């Protein structure tokens, strides 16, 4: 049976329909889940989409992490099931403590909206299992606060435990270690700044997001 992917919607989310459309086009069932309900229903995987949840007031993700849906997402993640945060979703996962580090403002003071080249560093995660190590993927970014930062110890841990999933070929935003995406130590919670859901159809200029979302759907089925 095809898995059902739930996409959490906060006030200010703006990529939920893209995420829904992308996973549906890749064969998954999908539904939107309003942030104010702690009931995730029978979903097999959760996506936290991009946008500006709660207006990014205070800090991106700072208020979203206290939504009832997020408490359920934390329990869901702790039970080993797949959770994917894209862009603002990545920021929310770091604020919620499901992923380490933080996203700071881009080096170079610019909002960045363009396709970038990513390299796959490991296939051992719910986002990269269907890719090949060292694959080069072209996927758009669309952010002002996407400059990943963390303590030296965390960076060492991410390296040693092979938890850096994707790196930028030409670092656009100053992220430490060229990091574009990481996972937690259980490898079931992943976050990335680029938008794979916007690279799933030839009309969008790239279909390189497909293997990533395929991986996520596949991980949600098992």
């Amino acid at each position: 049976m095809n898995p059902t992917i739930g996409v959490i919607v906060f006030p200010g989310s703006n990529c939920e329909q893209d995420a829904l459309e992308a996973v549906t086009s890749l064969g998954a069932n999908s539904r939107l889940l309003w942030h104010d309900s702690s009931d995730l229903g029978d979903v097999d995987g959760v996506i936290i989409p991009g946008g500006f949840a709660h207006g990014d007031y205070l800090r991106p993700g700072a208020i979203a992490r206290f939504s009832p849906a997020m408490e359920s997402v934390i329990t869901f993640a702790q039970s080993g099931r797949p959770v994917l945060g894209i862009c603002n979703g990545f920021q929310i996962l770091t604020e919620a403590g499901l992923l380490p580090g933080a996203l700071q403002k881009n080096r170079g003071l610019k909002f960045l909206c363009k396709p970038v080249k990513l390299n796959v560093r490991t296939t051992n995660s719910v986002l990269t299992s269907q890719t090949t190590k060292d694959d080069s993927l072209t996927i758009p970014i669309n952010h002002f606060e996407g400059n990943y930062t963390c303590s030296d110890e965390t960076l060492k841990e991410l390296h040693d435990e092979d938890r850096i999933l994707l790196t930028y070929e030409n670092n656009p935003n100053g992220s430490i270690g060229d990091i574009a995406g990481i996972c937690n130590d259980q490898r079931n919670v992943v976050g990335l700044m680029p938008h794979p859901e916007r690279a799933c159809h030839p009309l969008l200029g790239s279909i390189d997001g497909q293997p990533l979302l395929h991986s996520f759907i596949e991980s949600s089925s098992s």
Partner: protein
Amino acid sequence: MEFEATVEVQLKEGIADPQGSTIENATPKLGFNGIENVRVGKSIRFTITAKDETEAEKTIQELCEKFLTNPVIENAIIHLQGAE
């Protein structure tokens, strides 16, 4: 007792501050010279009711750690004053 609190949230040393840099770059163009190290932060003001100053301070510290700051990139300075 009621206290007036101000929490100053600042980016930690070494964390990029595009707003600060933009302001700094604009100052010589406006004829202000010698302005350096501009950092932009947030000031959050509120009142808090607590048994005493120690309790108020403790609550605010916890509030800062859990919500008002992201300890990975930000510091907080707490100012407390008894409200009259």
